[in-house]
């Protein structure tokens, strides 16, 4: 049995605030790293804000907004090596951008075009997981399987506060601990699961408390503090690589945007609280920190934002210029060696429909 201390309740923070908490520095991060993190956050933010616009313009379908989650996504991903895997939920749909996945691919996913389905092995980024928490055992299995092969890679899996109520979370977390799988369980506690507050998900005082039950450490970080998330994830990755197994990281934030483009939160959310949260949003906080440190100039900020805007302009252009998908793709890829009936079905469909649909 592992000797595991009770989870920390205090939120770890690096970036200071107006209430008197001073800025800290994270050991080992160069100015180049700090700027790279900023670039990652701006890219994610720009992707998200543009996507909401594209949705309104009818250019993408329903979209899960992640505004104000950029700090935890960029911070955690930055703690990984390229060989490490990321298992995103729909909330982290664009995290592949940080691994070189083209914006056009992710936009195509939200456009429902087959070109939006990438090969995870090309980026070490798993497919976007839609059923809540079911990706947790995948990450545990991948990490365990890599360890069995003597490979150094570990896995980072994102899931929400609501996900911690699911059986798949429990089975995945327990498996990870039992197998000492090198995986970081990153819980995005934005305090809402669509309209259900976290207080209706659990009686546990904090979500990190759950970790002790699995025999793994649990830590809590300010999810709006990119450096705190980075630092906690880096520690968890170090533990994982040292063969000490999984860590549960609870990144606390507050969902300051609708759950998705199809959601109207005015029916259930406290709008004043949302307004307040929006004034403390994570990108602005990091920008303030960098400026206090004297690392970021206006020019650099402008340039980084302009580059991100270009990525999105190019991305949507490329996504929209994808030719219509052939109906043959309905039948492809489900099997390496498809049952013969599928070829008959396709031939019949082509006879009836001709080449295309819609």
């Amino acid at each position: 049995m592992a000797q595991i201390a009770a989870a920390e309740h205090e939120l770890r923070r690096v970036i200071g605030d107006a209430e008197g908490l001073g800025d800290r520095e994270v050991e080992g991060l160069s100015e180049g790293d700090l700027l790279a993190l900023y670039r990652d956050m701006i890219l994610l933010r720009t992707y998200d804000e543009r996507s909401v616009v594209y949705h309104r313009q009818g250019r993408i379908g329903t979209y899960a907004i992640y505004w104000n989650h950029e700090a935890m996504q960029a911070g955690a991903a930055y703690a990984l090596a390229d060989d490490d895997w990321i298992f995103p939920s729909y909330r982290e749909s664009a995290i592949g951008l940080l691994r070189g996945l083209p914006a056009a691919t992710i936009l195509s996913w939200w456009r429902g075009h087959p070109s939006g389905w990438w090969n995870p092995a090309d980026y070490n980024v798993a497919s976007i997981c839609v059923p809540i928490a079911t990706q947790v055992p995948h990450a545990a299995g991948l990490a365990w399987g890599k360890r069995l092969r003597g490979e150094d890679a570990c896995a980072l899996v994102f899931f929400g506060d609501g996900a911690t109520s699911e059986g798949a979370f429990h089975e995945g977390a327990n498996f990870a601990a039992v197998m000492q799988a090198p995986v970081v369980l990153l819980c995005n506690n934005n305090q809402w699961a669509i309209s259900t507050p976290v207080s209706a998900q659990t009686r546990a005082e904090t979500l990190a408390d759950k970790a002790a039950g699995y025999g793994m450490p649990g830590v809590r970080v300010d999810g709006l503090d990119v450096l705190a998330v980075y630092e906690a994830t880096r520690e968890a990755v170090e533990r994982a690589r040292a063969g000490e197994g999984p860590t549960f990281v609870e990144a606390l934030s507050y969902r300051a945007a609708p759950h998705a483009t199809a959601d109207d939160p005015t029916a259930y959310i406290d709008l004043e609280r949302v307004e307040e949260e929006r004034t403390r949003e994570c990108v602005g906080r990091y920008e303030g920190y960098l400026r206090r440190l004297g690392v970021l100039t206006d020019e650099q900020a402008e340039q980084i934002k302009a580059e991100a805007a270009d990525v999105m302009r190019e991305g949507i252009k490329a996504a929209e210029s994808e030719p219509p998908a052939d109906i043959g793709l309905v039948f492809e890829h489900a099997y390496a060696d498809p049952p013969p009936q599928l070829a008959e079905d396709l031939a019949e469909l082509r006879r009836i429909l001709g080449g295309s649909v819609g």
Partner: protein
Amino acid sequence: MAEKLLVEAINDCFHVELERDENVMVMGEDVGRAGGVFRATAGLRDRFGPDRCVDTPLAEAGILGTAVGLCMAGWRPVCEMQYDAFSYPALDQLITHVGRYRWRTGGGMEFPVTIRMPYGGGVRAPELHDDSPETYYVHTPGIKVAIPSTPADAKGLLAAAIRDPDPVVILEPKLHYRTLRGEVPEGEHVTPLGKARLAREGTDLTLVAYGSMVPLSEAAADALAGEASVEVLDLRSLKPLDEEALLASAAKTGRVVIVQEAPRVAGFAAEIAAVLAEKAILDLQGPVLRVTGYDVPYPYWQIEDAYMPSVERVVDAARKLLAF
């Protein structure tokens, strides 16, 4: 060739396949130290080590869910579900991921997972140790399903499943684990998926069956000897289905009775009947009949024999059809 019990043939297959391919690993509840509650995995942990014959936590969704990740790391996991009905917690992973992940990656990644479990009744067991869940699996896109009825096929179909690039579910007739003995080829032995087996040739009527309903159908054919020449087609593989063999037999005899242990409604027999209706109607001399379990929970074992398709019920259906 050696004579082996059906469960021994499965064990033999594991020894051969784990030796042959170092990426194959076995995982499940009690498969390692105990060698499986039916001893199907006996000796593997000693021979190949606890990392290739893994005693997992008691968590079926976790077993199948981590198997998805293991595939991504290059393994070929063979997951044991301890009993038919205890595979249901894993259906979520099966439906939402195992059957879809290859498709989701645009064919870029393979998920060569095998899921195997003892299935079926007639063993005087407590509740939920008797189910025939093949329809859930066969209905799931991306999943192949095979069900052996002989020791040789138990070995050969499992080997085919392990080597197949796609996820395959194997249901093993637990009733016959230790009651059915037969010749089993030594060493590597593969029974290709999608090929039915003519268990017995006949000219008047075809009994279509799979798994434990095959020996039963053969007994029914014996009982009908002198009255009619009965063919028994062992499907072996439900998906892919050997339509050619099915249609050839229907064309030859013109009369088909499908024997299925699972409850009737939307069971696999209904699928077979539909294929015959679509593609063999002019060959048929009468309606396609089904002898199946009933649309009730599998009963208390003192009266389970009344639920199970029996020689009497199969003979009755065959006579009805012959007299049509």
